[in-house]
Every structure is written in C-alpha cells, then in structure tokens.
C-alpha cells in the first residue's frame, strides 16, 4: 500500500470507529516510514474531523463520536513516542465544566474536536473552581472554554470572567461559553468573547478568536 492509501484508510477507520483497524494501520504506517506527525494529522485527526462533520449534520451522535474518539486515542498512543518534540501546533486552550456541574460529555466532545483541529487542549475536568480557570490563563492559554448543563451553575461562568478582570488577565485571553442552557444572549450579557451551540461550531469559534 502506498502512503496515501494508508493515510486514507486510517482516516476512514477512525470514521468507522474501527479501533483494531486503526491500531494495525498505525503500526503499518510507522513500519513503512511514514512520519508520525503526518500519520497523526493526515490520518487520525483527519478522520476525527470527518466525524465532526457527520456530527454537525446529525448523521453521527454522541455514541459514534465517543467510539471514534476511542479509536483515535488508541492510534495516538502508538504514534505518540514517534512524534517530533515540537510538533507544529495551533495554540493552547483550556476547557472545563464550571463549578457545581459535572455534566462533561459536551466538554469532552469539544476537546476531541479541538485536538483533531490541532489545538493543544488542557482539560481542567468538571466541577472546576473559578481559580483554576484563572490559573490556566496565568499559564498562558490563548482561550478558555467553559460549559454548563444546569441553569443553576451558569452564573459561575460570569464569576470566572469577573475573577479574570480582577486579576488583570481578561485582555490576555479569549473566553468561550457553551452548554445546553447557554445561548448567545447570555454569552453577551456576561461579556464572553464567543459562544457555540455545539462542538463543531465551538472549534470554528476558537479558530475565529485565536487566529
């Protein structure tokens, strides 16, 4: 198989959520001398972007995205040690579910999509205290993304923005918000820079704000 075929088949295997095939193709790619960063970008990540497109047009749903992500991560584990030390990457971003909220499926999907788009993602997890978002900004991330599933925890997004202002850090970072009860009006009201209704648009919004 020529390199292009292998990369195409890697992307397709991710898209079909076929983990074993992904593993096999990653081994094969390395054995044939395909650079790990090329295999990652043009194979695995491209597959995940195709998953994102299917998710955006409601051909794929959460189970398919999770299963495809597992296949991609499994392949990534094989490629990881062969990657160059400083891969050409987009900027660093931090994602987290705000304090009081533990619903993190949406955040995890944004994470997978953002990684597939080339961002280095710092996952702050769920039920994230305000100070931890502020610390991520101190560490130099270009953007933070906050999500909430409950109307009771949404106000914590505003508190993070207030805390960033108090710490004099607000101008250094772009702030995105999302989650089921969040809408653009709310995002504007609390002074966020961006809002997205789903993972696909979240990545577009991150790109718009950070590049």
């Amino acid at each position, binding site marked *: 198989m020529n390199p292009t075929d292998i990369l195409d088949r890697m992307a397709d295997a991710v898209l079909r*959520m076929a*983990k074993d095939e992904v593993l096999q193709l990653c081994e094969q790619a390395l054995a044939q001398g395909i650079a790990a960063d090329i295999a990652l970008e043009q194979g695995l990540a491209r597959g995940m972007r195709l998953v994102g497109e299917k998710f955006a047009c*409601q051909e*794929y*749903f*959460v*189970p*398919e995205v*999770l*299963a495809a992500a*597992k296949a991609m991560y499994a392949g990534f584990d094989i490629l990881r040690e062969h990657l160059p030390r400083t891969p050409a990457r987009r900027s660093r971003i931090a994602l987290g579910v705000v304090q*009081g909220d*533990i619903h993190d*499926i949406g955040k*995890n999907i944004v994470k997978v999509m953002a990684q597939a788009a080339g961002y280095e993602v710092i996952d702050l997890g769920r*039920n994230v205290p305000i100070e931890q978002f502020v610390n991520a900004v101190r560490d130099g991330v270009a953007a933070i993304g906050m999500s909430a599933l*409950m*109307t*009771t925890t949404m106000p914590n997004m505003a508190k993070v923005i207030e805390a960033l202002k108090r710490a004099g850090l607000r101008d250094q970072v772009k702030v995105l918000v999302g989650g*089921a*009860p969040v*809408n653009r009006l709310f995002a504007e009201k609390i002074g966020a820079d961006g809002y997205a209704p789903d993972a696909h648009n979240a990545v577009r919004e991150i790109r718009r704000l950070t590049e």
Partner: protein
Amino acid sequence: MKTKLTRITRLLDRSAAELIKQQIEPAVFPIVVANCAARLAGEKLYRVLTDAELLSAVLDHSYRLFDYDLVMVFADVLVEAEAMGCQIDIPEDEPPVLLTPAGNHARIADPQRSERMPVILAAICKLRQLTADEVFILGSLKGPFSLASFLAGPEEFLALLVEAPEQADHFLRLATENQKHFARAIIQAGGIPFIGDPMASGSLISREHFARFALPCLRELVAEIHALGLWTGLHICGDTTTILDLLAASGAEILSIDDISMELVRNRLGPEQIIMGNVSTTLLADGTPAEVQSAAEKCLATALPKLILASACDVPPSTPPANIQTLIQTARRWQWS
C-alpha cells in the same frame, strides 16, 4: 368535586372531537419537582431528597401555592441508580452527582428497602393523604435507557452502544427489570408511574439507537404498567424531532415534550395523542410574565384539546413564582373561540 382528576381522565377517555365540542378547560401542570419545590418552601435540597415527610411537604406546599392539575413525586435522576449500587454524592443544596457507576456490581433493588426508593414510595402515600385524593400523584420512574447509562457510567454506556451492544443490553435488562418492580411498587403506593428518560434524547443518540436500545425497554415497561391496569406518561429531554413516532410507539398515553416546535409535534403525532408541554424552561426562568403568557397561549392554540399545558422540562428553581402563576392562569382563563 374532583375537578383535577376529571381534567386528566377526560383527556384519556374522550376523543379530540368530543373535547372540542364540550369546550373543555385545559389541564395545566408546571413540572414543579423536588428542587424547585424545595426552593419555594425555603428548604435545603439535601433534606428534601432524603426525607419522605419533607419531600411530600414541599411538593404539597407548591401544589397549594399554585393549584395545578397534577403532582409529581420526583426527587432526582439518581434515586434508582443509587439503589442499584451506584455511589452518589448529595450536596447540601445542589442536585446529586454520580461518583462511581455500579458497573459489574449493579443489582436489582428492593423498592421497599433500597436506599431512597422507599422515600419516593412513602412520599407518594403521604401526598395522597395530604391532597385527599383530589389530584393524581405521579411517581417519577427513570426510563431503562437512562438508568442503564448511570449503572455503566454515561459515557461508557454510550460508547458500548457502538462497541459492545451485548454489554449495553446487559445493563438495559437489569434496568428494565428493576423499573418493572419499581412501577409496581409506585402503583401499590397509590401513584401513577411516569417515565422520564433524559439520556434517550435525540440530542444524544440517533433514531436507530433509540429504536434498537431505548424503545424495546420502554415498551416492556409501559406494557407492565398497562397490565397493572394503569395509564402512564413518558418524558424525554432535548430534541425529539426525529423520534416522535417512536415515542408514540412506546404505548405511553401521555408524551411530555421538551422545547421543540409544538406545531411540528402536533402534526406528527396527530390530534388524538395527549401531549404535555412545552413552555420553555429558560423563558420561565428568565422571561417576563407577559412573555410566558404569550408562549403558553401559542402552545394552547396549537395543541389543544389533547394537551396538558406544561413546562418543557422541570421548572428551574430560579423561576419567579409569578411566571409559574402566569402559566396556570393562562390555562384557566382560556377561551375557546
């Protein structure tokens, strides 16, 4: 005078044409459950979720405050999951969170003994006394799909649908059996089982997965309730646009619909399906009474006569009481033109 019972039973018994001819007064139920009722009564949520006396007291308090046509005993989504072996945390004034899924330790619970299932049953009994049987007491029961997802862990479970369907089936089997027991216990306590299946949402899973995994369990559970001589309802959160016909295929008499186009819902489901819904909960929490009234009127005009005017999902605790009041008054003042 059992007006409230009549408002519901005539929806079940009579055709849309008859109801229109009789110009019936619409039934109304803002879905006020434990979290909102606790806030209205000034009680901490933790105590309400763990004490049958207090749970029934706050639900009775809201019922009397607003005077709506149904009462729902719903504590939180994790009652059955906890009873089946999941570890959860109940914060002082926030909804409980799932700490550790039961996984392979999941077991069928005893509704009379396991964790907080007896709290729900006792609250149903108590509410029947408090309301002197003038209103139906709904006992909320998680749909098997959602319960299975808590047992396995939500993300793990959703991935299993693709990667290992037979393992997903194992959790669904357990969850369905458990809920058949619980439905029977709710009925024995004097309640009407009302199924809520938030994870089986069209926002999360495909129509194919709903049909393959969620629907057969729902049908089995609904059939069990029917075999016990009762009617039931089904609420699914989020976008159900593509699965409305499958919700109807569950056999549940009442379908409670989240915030999607009511016009589309009525068109797809036909005039004889009883629909519960669907004034936006965001609007209830953040809108003005005038906005709530306008949304409620639109809903009534679109979906009557076989409609229980309701919130699209449970009413958020931060909702101003005036907005809940407006929802009810809009139904009470409805004039057939």
